[in-house]
């Protein structure tokens, strides 16, 4: 089985995985980083979103080999105790219901705020429209992104 050197949440590690195994399953089943969720496997829901060199990607659509030499950030790497501004905003606005899609929502928001530190509603819609939340927390996600922008500027 091929071996890959991956940098995940700032830690370089060597993993063995079939060449075609998506990053999603490498994270979840090889490295036990289960914060990144499987929602559809075809890039249509965004639950598996992680950051690759800071950009949001669908981890179900990337293989490990495509991530070699780049940095992968997952929800576990954001902060252990929820101290990242986006996590703080999420808690303040009481965003989640079931919570299953929220890791993907949060990681996408982190990337959005790096591009637009003070995003407009339209920029938020644009960045978040690929993600599905069946509990329907969209309005709170939008509010929390604005809140995170505010916290980030303090």
């Amino acid at each position, binding site marked *: 089985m091929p071996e890959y050197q991956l940098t995940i949440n700032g830690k370089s590690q060597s993993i063995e995985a079939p060449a075609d195994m998506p990053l999603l399953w490498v994270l979840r089943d090889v490295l*036990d980083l*289960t914060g*990144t969720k499987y929602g559809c496997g075809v890039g249509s829901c965004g639950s598996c979103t992680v950051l690759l060199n800071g950009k949001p990607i669908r981890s179900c659509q990337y293989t490990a080999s495509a991530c070699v030499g780049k940095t992968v950030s997952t929800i576990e790497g954001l902060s252990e105790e929820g101290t990242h501004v986006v*996590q703080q905003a999420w808690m303040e606005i009481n965003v989640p219901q*079931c*919570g299953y899609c929220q890791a993907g929502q949060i990681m996408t928001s982190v990337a959005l705020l790096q591009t637009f530190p003070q995003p407009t509603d339209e920029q938020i819609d644009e960045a978040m429209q690929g993600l*599905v939340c069946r509990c329907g927390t969209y309005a709170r996600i939008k509010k929390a992104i604005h809140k995170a922008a505010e916290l980030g500027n303090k």
Partner: protein
Amino acid sequence: MQRRAFIQLSSFLSGGWVVAQLVSLPAFAADDPVCFQPSPLIKLCSDGKIIVYVYKQEMGQGVQTSLPLIVAEELEADPKQVIAEALPYSPSSGFNYSTGGSTSILREFMPLRKAGAAAREMLIKVAANEWGISVDNCRAQKSRVINTTTNQSIAFKDLIAKASALPIPKEPVLKNYKDFTLIGKPGVKKNNIRDIVTGKLKYGLDYRVPNMLYAVIVRCPVMGGKVASWDKQSVATIDGIVELFEMKEMGDQLETRSGVAIVANTRWAALRAQKSLQVQWTYPAGANEKSSASYFAEQAARLQKTPDMIYNEKGAAVNDMPQPDGEWITASYQIPFVAHAAMEPLNCIADFSNGKFTLWGGFQNPGKTASVATKFFGLTSKDIFINLMPLGGGFGRRLSADYSAEAMQVAYQIKRPVQLMFTREDDMKFDNYRPASSHILSAKLGADKKPADWLHKIAIAPVADYLLGMKGNNNWLAMEAEGGSMGDMYYAIPSLRSAVSRTPSPLVEGWWRAVNFSYNNVVIECFIDELAKKAGVDPVEYRLSLLKNMPARKIKDGTLFDPARLAAVVELAAEKIEWNKKRAAGKGVGIACCFYNHAKAYTAHAFEVSVSKTKKIKILRAVVATDVGLVIDPDGFANQVEGGFVWGLSAVLKSEITLANGAVQQSSFFDFLVARMPDVPALEIHVIPSNAEPGGAGETSVPSVIPGLMNAIAAATGVRVRELPLKNKGYSI
């Protein structure tokens, strides 16, 4: 003391009021010497922790937040010390161990208050004895008992040893609502929110047990079809396959399909094999020719014949088949199958060893798995233990036991723990769908322009056909009629009839958030608008004229219905949307309401929309007015109402499951369309303050969304759409 505690608990339960549904003692640590458990649901420990066991399953609706709040309020516990835990599964609790129908708070409010109050009285009694004073000179606050004369206080944790020797009060005195410090107060956060935002919360799919294998199933795409043959060679090149074997159908109430199970060392190997495995099927005659069109045609034809069941009848008999004759106004509505599509696809870990099953997963009804799925193996509910995990969405889908039953069949075969996962495609194609239904509504207006005669006929397959094993039993048709106005008309209509006919479903059906209200209430609230238009009366005034000056009454299912409360939410929603404001052409307002009798909630949604010539809908404003009685956790409640709104928007605009050649056509979120962030406008929530019995929010926040928006679109365009979803008629958002 330990034994005594146990006996006390038994007698506490036999009082019958703690949690009426909880029929046996759960497997809690009753022998723990440092803890006092005055009820199966409350454990006070000498380290100061107060554990509240929640036996309703957490699926996003917030039961682990709201239910402990009720206990903490009456117990006078410091909420910071209160820890919510899922109540360990109890084998003999059977079907009663279920979470659904927006009933968690409705049913648990009084039992939980009494449990908390009883514990508080015991703790106060011990402290009063210590001080040698009357209990009247003591009160509890923030996990301490206070001597109101001296202001001395003792922590609960220092009273528990002696409290455990006291008899449990049978009729504890409950707090007055005005003294509540937790219930109804803002600022409560979801109890597990930190674990969610840090990715630590483990759902069923995140769980692993030692020595575990991974399974997926290739299921027959057509209901009733069977495996004819399968080619092992088609997956021969995939490393890590442990076993392939044929899955047996598991029969009534479970409704699993024929198929081939793939068990592998890794999930990825199983998933690859699922794509490659070649399986040939045989189908019952005609099964692979069914389509959505043929099913709706069958329903339309069925509606022209004598109904199977007259559910509700009032006043002068209404003919089953009134002919449009200039007097009768008639409209036909068509509502599609829809999927639940919870974000966490179905999954379950099962292990079979020493003749017993152990399961791990998220279940709305673990009792069904325990009492039904075990039978397939010649076992009983005593032969299974279920570890209950948080659910990544339920919406009714996890009331079924097909996914756990299949996992059990795989584990039984391979004799190793195994995690069965539905891929999203499996989850979409093998859902237990919200039924598709066709409706004919007819009414005749009286001299006062109000409906004098009303007839509502529905063709549908009852959910009970499949999930309760009631195929062909016409009594269960009632279940599709009893919700909302179809069950017992809210509006003052002197002569009416509602009737149900069965059209056996080509797909397995299940309960879906807002159940029969998601079709019956939709078509009724649209048709009322149609009648208002014919009558030339404003739709808000029309509704109010049919609700006002009617006394509260018990409806057919025994629930008390107060028309004044329904009128009040209609009026409030109308006021907030500025109903009477003049609007430009192409803009319109619409309203709809619902009394959700299962969960005692009154709701009205109002929309202001503009619709372009290309049928592009813009929701300019959306308003909801609700009266669900006492609200326990206002922000959690608002979250549910917002969620119900989005759920309704998906259903009215985009979502449908269609059938071709007997198989479901949709496979993921790119073809089963749901509302996404840009589709969802801000929802203005207006809650009518109330101390009435607390009702539910999860389902009750859905039914008036759909007709409210449909009515607004009809008002803006002058065109009435009677088929869902609207996208099929060229509308987009």
